[in-house]
């Protein structure tokens, strides 16, 4: 006789759910450190198929496991607890190298092994929840509420832990949380049920104490030898002198004792000076920047005058400037040479600021404490949106690593280089002020033409009739600098630009009145790509140019913030023919990896959902011909089909839960991105939005029990109608909402955002348990299979959402999700009552 799940069990389920979500986020961090971000995304998405595997496993063994529920649930909790660190440590030993994947087929095998290993912890965690659903079929809403609330708390918890501990140390915390869940279950969950779990309790205490006191120093990260930090550390006399962890990244400071670092990207070929002593600063073992030794004398950092980003200082004297992405301070050093009266410096990562301002303040010449520097820990776009000031110069220099422009970050949203962002920057320029953006040169060009197209569009939207009169651009062999002026560029400025370029052997790309003869003299390209792009985009054939360009250079917008998405299907066949002859660099691999991940997820899902449906129909409970279902509801007979064969009802169940799985994440992902623009800080925005969604969905699930009691089908219409209404209102009225919230101040923004998301999340938590409650009354045997469907749909959903957003934008994603909710409502299972 199954009783109600007690509070201890629900609490333990919440702990496991929290740990599983924390593990997912932690794996993203760990793989971003040891590998690269885009592969981390792919590996973790697919590892989540463990939820799908669990569905099938439980479907086939549901009665056996439910019979020994206490034993099964505690075993799976402990297995999760131990597999979480073990599987990661095993996976990082696999010599997988993403850069080799197109050269060496064995890398695919390594990748598959990583998937399989990392699937295990999620499989065990999913077993805990799925089995509880089946065992306490009358109380699915309470279990789902515990699951969602736990996940919500897990998302906040892991972010906090990442501030306090190094990522690899958090693995131990997950071991303990798994043991804690088991301990709670063994000690409290089955009291008075004649189940002896005392030996489990003792074992948990012993293991837990051992884990707490066991040495953990041996848990180290096996960082890829191809990452730039690993490469620098091979140089004799080089060592890591500082390591700092935060959810924004693992920062390491590297000192080079024997060989100077000499980090001076974009230095002119005419330069004769070299940088002074520097400390390398890596984020996630890559993306190197440097803290430069500074003694207050600008001449010691005169090498910065030999870079393209120095151009705006040579066009005229500035009084008040804004530096976005101040980082380790090289832009401030560059500005210091020009006696700038006031500098607003904005940097997102407080730990980077702490390094320059506190820990290495003497080394860095206390630049962040200078009287003329105002430091702001903020996200660049958010700072601009909430500031009322205007500047003589807004400077954005190389505000992403070279890797970002090398096709690896195409999946990452970036709100710095969208049309709306450029408009924001331009609105904060004083009359005659400049917006200066410096980027890495890429051959064939992708970033720069896209940036040009974005700027031209932004100027046109601001009703500037002749954008070409306001743009200047130059390039070296390694970097380019684009300047947009709030006003018409004068002859004096053009002459200064020419002189600046000629002294440094830089090539002008564009200025009003430029001629063909000037554009390709010092750093010669087979065609003057950027000049051609600039003249085409500023002329009448801009649209045709963008259409015909072999990479995607359509301007990014806030609704489709994928600046680094350069992939075009039309170009793929040509690139494939060039792969053997060194053309591999043309491949925009990030997007293709996403497609590959989606295909793998679909194939795996078909295997996990459809194959069991075909092979083990009776075992799944689709037909109850064997009469072995021990949990037949009252009034139903063994041997009689639960769902009429060939009736299509199981298909409706599948569609219902698949739609829910897709739609839930579509909305969640779309709103996380929408709210980043309001809350600004990507990290806090994701944490607040995600946890609010999950916690309120948990509350919604709990409340849904009351609605479920209604015998009417239209009852599902209630949450679906609210979701549709809110979803449509928020997405259509987003600009007004954002405008209002931005005026409410820091705390107000967060509070109002939570208030806006809460009702949406609350309703989104209802449809799943409501349908599950119906099914538990009619065909409970289907519950594990449904759990598997939900797992598979979630994996596909996360990948598909990114692809849809890249192609059509977040607004379309929200409308699609609402359509999916409507389809689900149409399929709402009174489904199984056809018998």
């Amino acid at each position, binding site marked *: 006789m199954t009783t109600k799940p007690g509070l201890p069990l629900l609490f333990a389920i919440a702990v496991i759910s929290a740990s599983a979500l924390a593990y997912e986020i932690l794996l993203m961090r760990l793989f971003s450190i040891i590998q690269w971000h885009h592969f981390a995304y792919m590996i973790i998405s697919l590892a989540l198929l463990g939820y799908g595997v669990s569905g099938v496993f439980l479907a086939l063994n549901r009665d056996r496991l439910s019979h020994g529920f206490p034993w099964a649930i505690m075993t799976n909790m402990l297995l999760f607890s131990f597999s979480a660190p073990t599987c990661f440590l095993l996976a990082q030993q696999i010599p997988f190298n993403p850069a080799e994947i197109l050269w060496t087929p064995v890398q695919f095998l390594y990748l598959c092994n990583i998937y399989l290993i990392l699937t295990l912890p999620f499989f065990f965690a999913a077993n805990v929840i799925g089995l509880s659903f089946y065992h306490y079929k009358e109380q699915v809403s309470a279990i789902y509420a515990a699951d969602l609330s736990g996940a919500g708390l897990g998302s906040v918890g892991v972010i906090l832990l990442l501030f306090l501990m190094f990522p690899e140390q958090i693995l131990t915390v997950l071991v303990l949380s798994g043991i804690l869940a088991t301990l709670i279950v063994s000690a409290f969950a089955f009291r008075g049920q004649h189940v002896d779990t005392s030996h489990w309790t003792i074992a948990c205490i012993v293991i837990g104490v051992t884990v707490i006191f066991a040495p953990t120093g041996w848990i180290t990260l096996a960082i890829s030898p191809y990452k730039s930090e690993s490469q620098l550390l091979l140089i004799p006399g080089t060592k890591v002198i500082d390591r700092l962890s935060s959810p924004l990244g693992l920062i390491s400071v590297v000192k080079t004792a024997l060989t*100077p670092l000499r*980090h001076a990207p974009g230095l002119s070929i005419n330069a004769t000076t070299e940088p002074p002593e520097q400390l390398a600063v890596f984020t996630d073992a890559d993306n190197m920047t440097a803290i430069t030794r500074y003694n207050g004398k600008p001449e010691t950092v005169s090498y910065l005058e030999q870079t393209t980003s120095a151009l705006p200082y040579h066009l005229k004297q500035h009084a008040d400037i804004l530096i976005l992405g101040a980082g380790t301070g090289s832009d401030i050093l560059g500005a210091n040479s020009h006696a700038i009266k006031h500098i607003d410096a904005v940097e997102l990562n407080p730990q980077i600021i702490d390094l320059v301002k506190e820990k290495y303040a003497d080394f860095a010449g206390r630049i962040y404490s200078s009287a003329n520097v105002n430091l702001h820990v903020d996200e660049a776009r958010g700072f601009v949106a909430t500031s009322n000031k205007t500047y003589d110069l807004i400077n954005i220099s190389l505000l992403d690593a070279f890797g970002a422009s090398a096709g690896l970050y195409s999946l990452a949203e970036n709100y710095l280089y969208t049309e709306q962002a450029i408009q924001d920057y331009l609105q904060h320029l004083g009359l005659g002020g400049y917006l200066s953006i410096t980027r890495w040169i*890429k051959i064939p060009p992708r970033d720069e033409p896209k940036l040009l197209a974005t700027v031209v569009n932004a100027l046109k939207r601001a009703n500037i009739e002749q954008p070409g009169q306001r743009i200047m651009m130059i390039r070296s*062999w390694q970097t380019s600098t684009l300047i947009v002026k709030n006003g018409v560029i004068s002859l004096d400025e053009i002459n200064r630009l020419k002189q600046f370029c000629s002294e440094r052997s830089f090539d002008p790309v564009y200025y009003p009145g430029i001629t063909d003869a000037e554009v390709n003299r010092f750093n*010669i390209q087979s065609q003057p790509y950027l000049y051609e792009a600039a003249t*085409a985009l500023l002329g009448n054939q801009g649209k045709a140019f963008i259409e*015909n360009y072999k990479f995607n250079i359509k301007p990014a917008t806030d609704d489709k913030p994928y600046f680094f998405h350069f992939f075009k299907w039309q170009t793929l066949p040509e690139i494939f023919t060039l792969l053997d002859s*060194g053309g591999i*660099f043309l491949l925009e691999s990030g997007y293709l990896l996403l497609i590959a991940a989606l295909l793998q997820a679909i194939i795996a899902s078909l295997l996990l959902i459809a194959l069991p449906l075909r092979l083990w129909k009776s075992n799944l409970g689709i037909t109850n011909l064997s009469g072995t279902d021990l949990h037949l509801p009252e009034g139903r007979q063994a041997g009689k089909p639960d769902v009429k064969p060939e009736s299509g009802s199981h298909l409706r169940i599948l569609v219902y839960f698949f739609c829910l799985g897709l739609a839930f994440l579509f909305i969640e992902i779309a709103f996380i991105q929408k709210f980043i623009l309001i809350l600004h800080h990507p990290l806090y925005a994701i944490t607040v939005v995600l946890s609010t969604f999950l916690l309120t969905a948990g509350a919604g699930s709990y409340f849904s029990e009351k609605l479920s009691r209604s015998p009417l089908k239209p009852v599902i219409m209630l949450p679906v109608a609210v979701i549709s209404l809110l979803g449509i209102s928020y997405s259509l009225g987003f600009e007004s909402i954002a405008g209002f919230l931005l005026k409410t101040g820091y705390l107000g923004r967060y509070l109002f955002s939570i208030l806006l998301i809460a009702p949406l999340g609350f309703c989104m938590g209802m449809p799943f348990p409501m349908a599950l409650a119906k099914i538990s009354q009619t065909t409970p045997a289907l519950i594990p299979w449904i759990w598997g469907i939900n797992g598979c749909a979630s994996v596909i959903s996360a990948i598909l959402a990114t692809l849809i957003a890249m192609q059509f934008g977040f607004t379309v994603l929200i409308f699609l999700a609402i359509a999916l909710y409507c389809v689900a409502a149409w399929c709402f299972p009174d489904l199984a009552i056809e018998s």
Partner: protein
Amino acid sequence: MKKIKHIVFWLIVIGLILLLFSSHVIAEDVFQHQRLELVNIIKVNVVSTRAFLDRGALDERVLDAIGKVPRHEFVPDDQRPYAYENKPLPIGYGQTISQPYIVAIMTDLLKPKKTDRVLEIGTGSGYQAAILAELVDSVYTIEIIEELAATAAGNLKRTGYNSVHTQTGDGYYGWETAAPFDGIIVTAVASHIPPPLIKQLKPGGRMMIPVGGQFIMQYLTLVIKDFDNKVTTRQIIPVRFVPLTGKH
């Protein structure tokens, strides 16, 4: 019957001994064959890329050098079976031996003459230095990673390229005592072109810098110092690809 068995036994033993002695020769023959095939692949690729390289074919001397230098001697044992595939291979310490096609193009773009003096920054396994040694009289190479430098020196010595001057250390300041150079190849990643290296380039000299990661090269930068000491760079992608087609 016993006698026949005896004869068969000794025939097998002699056969095995002969096989043992000749296996080295057979393997060398196989590698030689693979090398020639590799040269043919490079030739085909160059033809399709001629518009970008400003020539229809590579210097025959460069192709001869590729056909002659035993690449399998410059890769770790586990990579030997792939030594003559047209792809980069890992050589340990997070470094790679470049794709032979790229090696051929980089060497060709240096326009090496027999009497030239060439400097390489980033010896790696020593393969590029060996190719250069086939083409010019004096090759100087510097590697900063001590273990790699030692392995490369061993590889070069074993394969008979004793004339290559090797050094372990920082390549930023070039090789002052051997300067100036007719050609410089900088295979080690640099955030900028070191001014001392430009200084050590002879008037009329050429410097090659591949830009990109270990397995995926993005493009080549060719630095040319003309006879008036004016320095220019050329950015070259090694494949036939125009980002823009159609009329505007």
